[in-house]
């Protein structure tokens, strides 16, 4: 074979930043938060395996870019403010 095309500039597996695999693609359900129920206990933020929960003044929300739909936030929410809703995609 002649010269091979590489799509990475590195010579070993490294990635800038902390994520290299888009776990957002894995999702079949997404968390929906009812803001009035949220008590800001932050348990959802603590348990999220991909650090996708973030704090707003009134409640916590999910950054969907890496959310993989595992449902841990909904399972751990003390006040049942989070529901897992089926992801509809084209």
């Amino acid at each position, binding site marked *: 074979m002649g010269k091979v095309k590489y799509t990475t500039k590195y010579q070993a597996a490294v990635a*800038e930043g902390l994520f290299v695999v888009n776990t957002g693609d894995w999702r079949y359900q997404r968390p929906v938060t009812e803001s009035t129920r949220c008590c800001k206990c932050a348990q959802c933020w603590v348990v999220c395996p991909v650090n996708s929960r973030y704090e707003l003044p009134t409640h916590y929300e999910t950054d969907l870019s890496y959310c993989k739909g595992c449902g841990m936030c909904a399972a751990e929410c003390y006040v049942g403010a989070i529901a897992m809703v089926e992801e509809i995609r084209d």
Partner: protein
Amino acid sequence: MVTSKVASSSVSTARKTVAETVVIDGNKAAAYGAMLSRAQVVAAYPITPQSPVVENLSTFVADGLLDADFVDVESEHSALSVLHGAALAGARTFTATSGQGLCFMFEPYVRTSSMRLPIVMCIATRETLTPQSIWGGHQDAFLVREAGWIQMFAENNQEILDSVIMAYKIAENPDVALPVNVCFDGFYLSHMAERVDLPPQELVDSFLPPPRVLHSTLDPDHVMAVDPLTPGDLLVQYRHMHVQAMQRAKKVIVDVHKEFAELFGRSYGGLIEEYRMDGAEMAIVANGAPVGTAREAVDIARANGKKIGLVKLKTMRPFPRQELCAVLGNLKAVGVMDKNVCYGWASGAILMEVRSALKDVKNSPPVVGFIDGLGGADITLEDYDRAIGIIEEAAKGDVENEVTWLALEEE
């Protein structure tokens, strides 16, 4: 013991190449190699027959002769894992192990090469268990030859020291960026005292540049995940790069050996070394300490009029395929001395690879193999004499057995 000296009077008069001549065993020679190379982080766990390497380095550090972080670890797995971190932080690192220690180290060992970390590790070769043995065979080093490390074998204690120094220059070359094993026979070299010329520190400093910054040096200003989960389309590219780097290493190994010879006055060839191959019709291929005896055996055979020479296989990985074809291709017969077994082929590993390489040559000579020296047994002059007899028969076209186990008798 024969080392070829570069015939150049200007080397010895213009530059001092020997700081001190000592009589030391191979383990201490390895430790001196790491010390003179200014290794910065050393982490190793003792195991027979390598333990004195660690003990010597620990003493060097305690005595202020080596300015290094000596990390006490609880296992070989931890030893290499610690060095991963140190190498990623940009340090020059060193470790050593043998046999089952290498087995315990296997998990980080396979990672090291594809992570392209220029770690230098000595293997004081030992049989892999079982049967329970502490003694020298080559099985441990040959077992891991597909883990992607560069592997070189030393014939004597001087070569151990010199090869450790050269290993850093090879490993840290940006075209290579691969870890290097400097292998030496357990007990035969590790515990045997020989004359060794210690080069001056300044000379080694002029040969070895300071450790270079790696592609993935941990740097808080450039946040990076090292070895994250990698999808297949990327993995294949990294594998390809690794394979290509191993091939590029061939030229680097030869160039580094040439440069070393010019500076230090000792020449080892690099990939292979020929001994009395001029006018030879047959050859023995051997590696490691057994080469020393092979040289004597060839001298005796030549004195008896036999046209036989020796090819020393210094570098096993990358395998010097073209170089071996060039020197062996036109002979009448080749014999390979293996101090290891390759189960899949009922032969030694070197025989399997030499046979495979010679396929490139039209009408290549018959290749016969010898298995000897297992479990710490001597490979004697008598063994070589027998082997040469079998090679001579093969040269006449008479190959009774492709592989002869020299230590065993037929019923």
